[in-house]
């Protein structure tokens, strides 16, 4: 009996050279790998301890400086210098020093990856690239060093949860709201060790940028990756096509259905990414800082949607707003199109492209009992600053509307 396979099973089978299915442990060749300034330090340490002088394939490896950009301390700068030296010694052509953008944005922008590939990154949000119809997942630095030395790694072939998103998103509702709703339904560990596959009318209708937001948050449900089938938008973003795989009907191990058409703006309330409520239920909560950016929502489309709300308005006097473009490309386009003027005139600050304040170390750390509304992906205790501070995760539209009002606000109030 011919058994149906998921897209992820097919990608891994293609690499391994035989048909594999969920639950099997395999040693899998890796097409592309990357890391950033943060994890890079430990990758180099591990390679040194392994006795590896030359990595196996420098052309299939990229390093992008994004976490401590520009460096916030002498030690951060010293560690970056180590990684920079390593990149030069190894002759890395795909090394991007600070100022280029976030790794998960730069790697696909440069077209380093393509549909059908197996991609590993030393950062948990490597799952973002699953939105390009490839298998990508995050690992630690030692795992990445092993991949750089040998060109392969072990993994358990994951089961796939197919998330069918019916209907199309309404005005002022974004793919961020949809992925928050999905996280509420699946929970913070509902997809552990599994792959998610986002499908359905709402996903097909989405831009590639919106799809990246969806796949970005797969890890917040414990998933290895967030796969989305390829189409012309995928190819246009990458500037290339690859081997396209899609799931056979009924091949998935679990099905989750979401009514995207009736969805309204929502936020993940402090403490857990799955603590998701409609914005209208928490409207009025005070906001000290609004952050627009990160690998989740720092792309041109996100800045554009926020600018639509901020145009001709002011950020509330009790609130500060920080905008950080996800890449230099995004920054330049936003500048050319006048979006940056809109932000500056509204009283927002523009930061250097990179991860910005998302992980709570610089460029907008929040203090004791302060509250942030953020387009990023994590609202763990103390994530953006003091242990007593808190974070609401929201869409670019909700962040912009909340910045104007100085409190959590439903962006539908600003529809014109």
């Amino acid at each position, binding site marked *: 009996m011919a058994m149906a396979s998921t897209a992820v099973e097919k990608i891994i089978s293609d690499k391994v050279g035989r048909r594999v299915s969920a639950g099997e*442990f395999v040693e899998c060749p890796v097409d592309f790998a990357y890391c950033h300034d*943060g*994890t890079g330090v*430990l990758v180099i340490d*591990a390679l040194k*301890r*392994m*006795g590896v002088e030359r990595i196996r394939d420098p052309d299939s490896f990229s390093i992008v400086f994004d976490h*401590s950009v520009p460096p*916030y*301390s002498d*030690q*951060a700068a*010293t*560690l970056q210098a180590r990684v920079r030296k390593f990149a030069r010694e190894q002759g890395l052509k795909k090394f991007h020093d600070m100022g280029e953008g976030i790794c998960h944005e730069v790697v696909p922008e440069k077209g380093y990856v393509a549909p059908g590939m197996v991609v590993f990154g*030393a*950062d*948990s949000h*490597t799952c973002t690239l699953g939105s390009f119809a490839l298998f990508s997942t*995050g*690992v*630690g*630095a*030692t*795992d990445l*060093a*092993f991949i750089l*030395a*040998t060109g392969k790694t*072990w993994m358990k072939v994951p089961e796939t949860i197919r998330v069918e998103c019916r209907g199309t998103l309404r005005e002022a509702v974004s793919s961020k709201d949809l992925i928050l709703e999905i996280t509420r339904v699946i929970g*913070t*560990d509902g997809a*552990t*060790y599994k792959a998610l596959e986002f499908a359905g009318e709402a996903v097909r209708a989405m831009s590639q940028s919106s799809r990246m937001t969806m796949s970005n948050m797969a*890890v917040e449900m*414990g998933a*290895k990756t967030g796969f989305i089938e390829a189409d012309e938008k995928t190819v246009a973003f990458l500037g290339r096509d690859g081997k396209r795989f899609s799931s056979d009907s009924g091949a998935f191990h679990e099905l989750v259905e979401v009514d995207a058409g009736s969805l309204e703006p929502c936020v993940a309330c402090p403490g*857990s990414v799955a603590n998701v409520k409609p914005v209208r239920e928490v409207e009025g909560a005070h906001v000290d800082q609004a952050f627009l950016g990160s690998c989740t929502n720092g792309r041109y489309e996100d800045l554009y949607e926020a600018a639509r709300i901020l145009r001709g308005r002011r950020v509330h006097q009790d609130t500060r707003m920080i905008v950080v473009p996800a890449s230099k490309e995004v920054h330049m386009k936003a500048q050319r199109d006048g979006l940056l003027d809109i932000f500056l005139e509204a009283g927002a600050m523009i930061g250097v492209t990179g991860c910005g304040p998302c*992980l*709570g*170390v610089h460029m907008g750390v929040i203090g004791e009992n302060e509250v942030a509304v953020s387009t990023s992906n*994590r609202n*763990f*205790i*103390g*994530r953006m600053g003091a*242990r007593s501070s808190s974070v609401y995760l929201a869409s670019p539209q909700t962040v912009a509307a909340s910045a104007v009002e100085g409190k959590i606000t439903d962006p539908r109030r600003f529809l014109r």
Partner: protein
Amino acid sequence: MIRGRVWKFGDDIDTDVIIPAKYLRSVDQSVWPKHVLEGVDPGFSSKVKPGDIIVAGKNFGCGSSREQAALAIKWAGVAAVVAESFARIFFRNAINNGLPLVEAKGISGMVEEGDVIEIDLDRGIVKTPKGEAKSTPLPPFLQEILKSGGLVEYYKAQVKREQK
């Protein structure tokens, strides 16, 4: 066999509370164990003793890929982590650094903080004062990585074998 005193934690202990990001960019790596689990229990690093065991709920180690989370726990002297479930990147990082993990369903309900428990890694059994908790033992190649002391040592042993 691993035998040690238990420190108990809840569900969804993320890597940001295991080791907050502000300590990561340190040239001096000995900083990490001094702040282990600070985000959830600020005094933990001064209480934990070598050989102690962490017992936690579901999804331990969720969040970032920072390997410092596994290293901070290991370098604080923790002998093993037993949890209802682990987030996958943390799981790999721990094994890769020779920190034993046991996934044992129901474990949170079977132990109290301060209990002494015994772990048989080969058989995947945890002996508690309230009885035994069973887990699926790690597949043989993962046990080998763990027994080598981590992925670096495993790699070196592999290279040495190939050279012979």
